[in-house]
């Protein structure tokens, strides 16, 4: 009760990292604040992408409906895909990377704090740039995969595909900068004794993901520049009349696109690998195998891209190669699932909301993996491709695998992030609503696809006999929406709570749980020395004494800066101005960027 609590003396906690006025937040280079901003922004985009999905599902609830025009519908599914992949999935992972990596490896921030801030502002401005297209009536409408030559100026004369190519180009800069930052941080800034094979598995998965980011995003950047030059400067990369070939776009896009889906899912594997051991009271089973399988998945992921192109007529040898490669990648992935089960075997399982999400994620990802093997059987993929069967598959792996783990991660790390707990009671209702809603939405779609409904269609005819299944799927969509709203309610309810969570409420093993809840700005009073993979289970006293005990070290925390935000504006100008009629438009942006970088370089730190 409020009065009882007011009379009991609360131990005063040191000032948390949340402290700061608006200027402090806008100029922050603190990885924890930046992580919060990434997460909050990505949540807003999740709501926008979810709204797009609900309009799509409402239009498709029955055959031959005219709720939205064909052109608007085509923009809706394009923006839904772009939003969920580039404005939700990737930024959410980066939000977690940002908040957790330094805390998990014993560092006080990332290697390049201002570069970190640059990545966030480019992400925010890039997302706003893409969404501004709606106000111009020119939202991208060529699908998230933007196939040539539909994307050409000839067949897409408006600005829609310019918003697409330039918007994604902008966002790619943010991702690549982030990848460089996290790799450098993990290699260079681990605390003494934090050997690579002692790092928490989440940081390992972030490490592999960051390598994928810095190698895959440049491929997309090249493809997008080719598209931009075709549309703006009259080049002919994808123009068949001049000897170009739209097939080139497909190869480049999917050479990016397949590693991209591993960029999306490896962080989820990392989150699951943190939650399950904690709530099993057992260490992760097969830690080394989990590291190596993650690396293997990252490597093999480069060799399977054309399984997105089985219908394009590449010829039997290419088809066979990619068929076999795609099946092979299922092996290290399956191994991970077995290791999670083995972690729980013999444990003391506590079904907190976070644990429910982690288990739900494993269960649904396995279903998505099964339909993936069905796709890999390429002669039958000729039936499955471009139908709702594929839509079912990737939502099972991405919504089930990624989004459910992200929700799990929120419930798990919320006390560390805020010092408060999300309600477990609401959490349970929220989990079951979301879980049932998600399965109701997407399980029927396996059947809808194999019974003859293609993808990316604004309507379908009565004769197909698929009205019932579609209605079921739409009902599931609305239930899913309720599940998301329940999460928001859970979050908002905590605003009135006192931030009195202990440092390690779950009894977890990894280093971030030694810090205050929420952590102080400088993370650790003293940099600890580690001797094990589970420091809080094997050496809690010395580690906690170093982290939260009296400060003996002196250190310097980087000050805030306006220059990353300033430079981010320049990046958007440099690329956005390709849409402007004057040829020197992009140069204005480049000059802006140059001013930003010079000031940044000479700014005292």
């Amino acid at each position, binding site marked *: 009760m409020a009065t009882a609590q007011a009379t009991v003396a609360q131990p005063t906690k040191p000032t948390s990292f949340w402290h700061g006025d608006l200027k402090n937040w806008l100029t922050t280079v603190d990885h924890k604040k930046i992580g919060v901003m990434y997460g909050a922004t990505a949540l807003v985009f999740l709501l926008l992408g979810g709204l797009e999905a609900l309009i799509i599902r409402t239009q498709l609830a029955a055959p031959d409906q005219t709720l939205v025009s064909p052109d608007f519908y*085509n923009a809706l599914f394009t923006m839904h895909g772009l939003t969920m992949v580039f404005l939700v999935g990737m930024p959410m992972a980066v939000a977690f990377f940002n908040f957790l990596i330094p805390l998990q490896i014993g560092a006080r921030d990332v290697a390049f704090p201002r570069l970190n801030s640059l990545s966030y502002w480019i992400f925010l401005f890039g997302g706003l740039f893409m969404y501004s297209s709606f106000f111009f009536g020119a939202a991208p409408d060529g699908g998230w995969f933007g196939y040539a030559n539909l994307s050409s100026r000839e067949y897409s004369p408006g600005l829609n595909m310019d918003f697409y190519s330039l918007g994604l180009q902008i966002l790619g800069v943010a991702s690549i900068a982030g990848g460089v930052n996290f790799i450098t941080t993990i290699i260079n800034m681990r605390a003494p004794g934090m050997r690579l094979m002692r790092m928490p598995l989440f940081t390992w998965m972030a490490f592999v993901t960051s390598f994928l980011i810095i190698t895959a995003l440049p491929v997309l950047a090249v493809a997008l520049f080719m598209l931009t030059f075709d549309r703006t400067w009259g080049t002919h990369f994808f123009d068949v009349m001049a000897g170009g070939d739209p097939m080139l776009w497909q190869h480049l896009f999917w050479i990016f696109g397949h590693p991209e889906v591993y960029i999306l899912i490896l962080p989820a594997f990392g989150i699951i690998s943190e939650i399950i051991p904690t709530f099993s009271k057992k260490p992760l089973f097969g830690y080394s195998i989990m590291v190596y399988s993650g690396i293997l998945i990252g490597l093999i992921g480069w060799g399977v891209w054309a399984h997105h192109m089985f219908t394009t007529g590449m010829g039997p040898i290419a088809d066979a190669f990619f068929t076999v490669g795609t099946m092979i990648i299922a092996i290290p992935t399956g191994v991970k699932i077995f290791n999670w089960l083995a972690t729980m075997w013999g444990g003391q399982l506590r079904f907190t909301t976070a644990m429910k999400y982690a288990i739900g994620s494993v269960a649904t990802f396995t279903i998505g993996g099964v339909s993936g093997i069905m796709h890999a059987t*390429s002669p039958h993929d000729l039936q499955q491709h471009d139908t709702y069967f594929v839509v079912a598959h990737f939502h099972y792996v991405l919504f089930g695998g990624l989004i459910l783990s992200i929700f799990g991660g929120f419930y798990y790390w919320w006390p560390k992030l805020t010092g408060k707990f999300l309600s477990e009671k609401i959490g349970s209702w929220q989990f079951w609503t979301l879980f049932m809603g998600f399965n109701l939405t997407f399980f029927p779609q396996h059947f809808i696809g194999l019974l003859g409904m293609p993808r990316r269609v604004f309507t379908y*005819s009565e004769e197909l*006999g698929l009205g019932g299944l579609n209605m079921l799927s739409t009902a599931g969509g609305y239930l899913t929406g309720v599940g998301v709203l329940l999460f928001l309610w859970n979050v908002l309810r905590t605003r009135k709570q006192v931030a009195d969570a202990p440092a390690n409420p779950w009894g977890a093993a990894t280093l971030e749980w030694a810090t205050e809840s929420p952590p102080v700005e400088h993370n650790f009073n003293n940099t600890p020395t580690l001797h094990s993979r589970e420091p809080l289970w094997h050496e809690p006293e010395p580690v906690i004494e170093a982290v939260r005990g009296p400060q003996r070290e002196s250190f310097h925390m980087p000050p805030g800066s306006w220059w990353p935000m300033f430079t981010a504006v320049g990046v958007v100008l440099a690329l956005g101005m390709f849409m402007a009629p004057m040829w020197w438009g992009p140069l204005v942006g480049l000059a802006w960027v140059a001013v930003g970088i010079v000031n940044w370089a000479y700014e005292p730190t």
Partner: protein
Amino acid sequence: MIRKRSSRILQAAFALLVLPFLAACGDEHPQTTFQPVTEFGELINGLFYNTTAWTIAILVVVEAALIYILVRFRAREDRPDPEHIHGNTLVEIIWTVIPAIIVAVIAVPAVKAIFELQRPMDAGAFEVEVIGHQWWWEFRYPELEGVVTANEMHVPVGRTIYLTMHSADVIHSFWIPRIGGKRDVNPTPRPREGEQPKRTHLQFTINQAGEYDGQCAEYCGTAHAIMKMRVVAHEPENFDRWVQAYRATPPAPTDPLAARGQELFFRSPCIACHAISGTRAIGQIGPNLTFLGDRWTLGAGTIDNSAESIARWIRDPHGIKPGAKMPGTRAGAAGMPATGLSDEDVDAVAAYLFSLTTEASMGAVTPQPVPTDTTQPPAQAGVPTPAQTR
């Protein structure tokens, strides 16, 4: 004793798995992949059932193990802290090798099927050239000189069909689920010296006469969702009869409205884009209108076919099919101005076009012989010779 949580999970799972079947049961599904009428379709379904059997088996084992674990190892106060097991090499090897073997069992027949399905054209195959357009299908028949259809493909049962496909604009995909898998229809670059232009192919033999529906399966712009087609598979004797009838010149319409429509049609802008075999309408830009009265739909599956529908379409194609590149009577499209036909004229033209049926012409026609004299110019859908009119 089954705990409440696990029985709730099982009930939910059962409901989710069974409900879709109940909803789908009893409906007819003309585009189902589960009732193939070709060896192509049966081969790939066989692979699918093989993969499904193995993967569902794995799925059941994994999910059952998960549910067992959740029940058996739920935290209980009376139990000591669990032993910290970090791994087990033998177990890791076992659950790597077993999936690898299953992968091999799935992959080998799949690879064999890939090569079988993409074999070179069988000798004696019936060739059809498929050309994708935004948003309709053109079918040309090399073996049947002068025969061109739009949105409906006519083929014989029991003979290998070999499709050679490309697009006139953007990427489309040809998919008739009951016939088998889909193949993209690509715009292809100009070939280099001495090279053949790139084409994609499908090869199959239909074993049952009937009509099989499909639709474009690669997002191709505004009207992608309503770019449908139908394959009409005839028993061989019926197919020969269809070819005969299709190559015949349609007789002059007896209905006065249709007769007026015929006269108007050949004086209108329509013939700039459209062709009718055996007449002087030889436009190649839009769908071929030969024997339009026989077509199962208009607008590539958008609306049913009738004289009224044809009239509606001529007046305002975009009202029916957004994005259609055909001009209406009052609004232009794709650079073409409005046709300016009056409402009465439209009704007459529609009556004429709907009167063009093989049934009407079969009664009164002399079938065209296949031309053997190569010194004559090819008797294409061109200028009717005096012997052919009436």
